[in-house]
């Protein structure tokens, strides 16, 4: 079988399994998996910038938040219905990621990480500041009546699962398609050796900006969908820990692999879920995993799989 065949079979197979799982999973895990798929989409977006382009952002919660608040505020204050609200979230994501990209990409390396962190922190504080609009730390609930998209009630668990699966499929396919396109290959080449790519006549800044916008927009749409599916918009989704999460998922799952973000999200989600029975300090697990992955498995789970067994994995 050709590599392309194997790739299509594997990723298509995963989506089919996810589709089938909803009929057999108990309600608790059914709900978890819907949440995981939305968070995994966020991580897929993050991976395009971090894994494939080699730019480590510490501020992706700003993009997630832009989508979430773009959607939520337009429902809450402008009376939008879900479809245009999602579009508003997407547009907010494109706008914010373009501006942040233009500014932050003037820096490199460590400065890029700090700048993205600072912009995201400013975004979080802005949400807290405009408390009349955003309800600050407390956030606001999106009522069930406001969550009906084309006659489908998104608060219903099974509809919610479908919507999450749809979002995840789209993100996964965009990611898969991108890395097989010349644009994606150029991003990988930039990660490997930026100067060399420049001297082949490529506009590095334009490519990086493209990566920031695609990555930020996927994160924003994930944020918008998250708010809509789970009916809540809150400031914690724009805070620093929420920027660290996709980094954690991607590092654990495998940077620069298409499946890594999903695998990392599943592992991390259930690690934290299982540990919550033992301790309330659930971020301890996140810290231990971050250090352990950095020390012992810099390639992540899927990365190790690729290195040892399946070299054809994208």
């Amino acid at each position, binding site marked *: 079988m050709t590599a392309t065949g194997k790739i299509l079979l594997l990723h298509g197979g995963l989506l089919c399994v996810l589709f089938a799982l909803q009929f057999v999973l108990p309600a608790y895990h059914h709900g978890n998996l819907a949440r995981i798929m939305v968070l995994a989409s966020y991580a897929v977006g993050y991976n395009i910038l971090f894994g494939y382009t080699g730019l480590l952002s510490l501020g992706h919660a700003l993009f997630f938040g832009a989508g979430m608040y773009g959607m939520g505020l337009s429902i809450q204050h402008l009376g939008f219905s879900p479809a245009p609200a999602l579009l508003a979230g997407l547009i907010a994501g494109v706008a914010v990621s373009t501006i942040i990209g233009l500014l932050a990409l003037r820096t490199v390396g460590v400065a890029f990480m700090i700048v993205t962190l600072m912009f995201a922190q400013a975004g979080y504080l802005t949400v807290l500041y405009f408390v009349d609009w955003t309800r600050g730390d407390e956030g606001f609930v999106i009522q069930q009546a406001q969550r009906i998209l084309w006659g489908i009630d998104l608060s219903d668990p099974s509809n919610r699962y479908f919507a999450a699966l749809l979002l995840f499929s789209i993100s996964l396919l965009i990611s898969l398609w991108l890395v097989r396109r010349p644009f994606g290959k150029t991003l990988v080449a930039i990660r490997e*050796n930026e100067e060399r790519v420049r*001297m082949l*006549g490529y506009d590095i800044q334009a490519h990086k900006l493209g990566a920031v916008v695609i990555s930020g927009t996927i994160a924003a749409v994930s944020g918008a969908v998250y708010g809509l599916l789970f009916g809540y918009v809150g400031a914690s989704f724009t805070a620093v820990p929420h920027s660290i999460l996709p980094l954690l998922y991607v590092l654990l799952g495998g940077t620069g692999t298409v499946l890594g973000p999903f695998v990392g999200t599943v592992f991390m989600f259930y690690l934290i879920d299982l540990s919550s029975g033992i301790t309330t300090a659930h971020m301890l697990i996140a810290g231990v995993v971050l250090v352990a992955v950095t020390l012992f498995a810099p390639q992540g789970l899927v990365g190790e799989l690729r290195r040892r067994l399946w070299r054809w994995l994208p």
Partner: protein
Amino acid sequence: MTLLSTRGLSKSFAGLQAVSGVDLDLRQGEVRALIGPNGAGKTTLVGMICGRITPTSGQVMFDGREITRLPAHKRMLMGMAYTFQITSVFTGLSVAENVTLAARRRVPHSGLSDAVTTALRRVGLSEHVEQEAGDLSYGHQRLLEIAMGLVQGPRLLILDEPTQGLTEAEVDRFKALIRELAGETTILLIEHNMSVVMETADRVTVLNFGEVLAEGTPDEVRANAEVQAAYLGGD
């Protein structure tokens, strides 16, 4: 016709004069070698020509257009190609993908695979098309680097010490390749291997302490007493 010229091109790093007042004129189709002892400013000069380094003063003209402030990638799109001194092929990509990446900005989509095949055949890597570049021998990686330059169909091909680390047979093959390209494309060659310079270059420019010490045909340069003192005799 002059393809590339520089006027008074200078660069200083923190007060240290790396290149000063270099005037260079390359005719279309000529093979020009740039030689000089280590630290003579060859790589800095070439860096300013292809846009990796911003000059302190002076001008670069390419194809009748002043390009002193033009970003590197735009110069490449005008028809320059640069191969690196340290091999910097993309080790994770296959040989063909490396060359495709190099070709994509300059070759129309329909002709892409033909161009890649031709470039790889010319450097003699046809048998390694699907191999991962990181698995190639050092000499083959250098040849791949040259193929990545060739495939762009450049009007000016800048080769920075292309024969460094090649075996004798590979050097011979490289000389033949340059002779084949002569007339077809303009080549600026930074080279330490004197036999390559003498056998392939139309003209030779000698750089010493950042200045042009001499310029002429290989025989003239070889006969030049100053050059012998500074460089050839120094070995």
